[in-house]
């Protein structure tokens, strides 16, 4: 028997997501629907996290945690945002938390966090990769994690500012400022080098 939606969905979500959400809210079909959800979003979420933390191993751990959090959070998902926006938000928050923990770990080991990140980036990219892309990612390391997240969502994921704001839990104007500052800083860094 299908369970009724707990609350009225207040944002428009893609029809395939709305259908998936309906099946996720039915105990009889939720596990099957969840597998579909993982298949549908794993690659997109993987790359959002990977661009922020760089190493595949860390990305893999975080991505699994994201899906477990999504599963645990589904009963209280209120539909105030689109399903994928909500999942992106969890993914970005997990990645940012990881970066914070990682920074502290580096400091505790008396290492320079920026050097650790640069080393990890070098180890995660193809040595014969596009030079400009390499420099772009190296420049991104000099931004704050928040700015990197905003830049990643807007630039690489091509997400509208409105959705970036929803993912980051900030206002649209705030993320526009973050993006503007990030671009300006990247331009300066790339001009210097």
């Amino acid at each position, binding site marked *: 028997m299908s*369970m009724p939606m707990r609350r009225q969905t207040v944002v428009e979500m893609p029809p395939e997501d709305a259908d998936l959400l309906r099946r996720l809210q039915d*105990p009889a079909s*939720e*596990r099957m629907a*969840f*597998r579909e959800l*993982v*298949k549908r979003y*794993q*690659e997109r979420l*993987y*790359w959002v996290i*990977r*661009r922020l933390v*760089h190493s*595949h191993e860390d*990305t*893999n751990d975080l*991505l*699994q945690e994201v*899906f*477990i959090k999504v*599963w*645990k959070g589904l*009963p*209280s998902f209120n539909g105030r945002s689109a399903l994928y926006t909500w999942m992106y938000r969890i993914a970005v928050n997990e990645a940012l938390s990881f970066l914070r923990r990682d920074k502290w770990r580096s400091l505790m080991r008396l290492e320079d966090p920026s050097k650790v990140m640069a080393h990890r980036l070098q180890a*995660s*990219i*193809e040595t014969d*990769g*596009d030079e*400009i*892309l*390499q*420099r*772009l*990612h190296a420049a991104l390391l000099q931004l704050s994690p928040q700015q990197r997240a905003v830049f990643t969502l807007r*630039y*690489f994921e*091509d997400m509208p500012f409105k959705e970036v704001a929803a993912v980051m839990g900030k206002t649209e104007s705030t993320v526009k400022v973050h993006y503007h500052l990030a*671009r300006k800083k*990247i*331009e300066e860094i*790339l*001009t210097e*080098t």
Partner: protein
Amino acid sequence: MTASHNMNHQHGKMKKQYSDDRSLFKAPPAGYFEDLPDVVMQRLPRRSVKREEGRRTVAWRRWAPAVVTLVLLAVIWWVRVRRSSSSLHPVPQEWTVEDEILYNWEDDDLLMEELASRDDGETSYL
């Protein structure tokens, strides 16, 4: 072509050229995305209670720490107030009239009565 040239005022062009950066990173192991759904599904915790009960439990768990903290703070505050008031005005072992006045110094009637009963107006103890 320099990097800054690409970045500077050519956002649209640059996006087209460099927004797909996946090839830059070392690819995940072969078959990673095929295997991941199974790995995730194996790690999912079972839903142990009915959803409605689960929601109530979640709501209860969300509010309980705040309520317990508030109650504890209220009890601590009450105990401190009680202690400070009793240490300011300790109850004497043997009561005299002056002790009675000092102990009940907030009792204006008693104070005025005592003052009125004294002809010399000595109020140094106050």
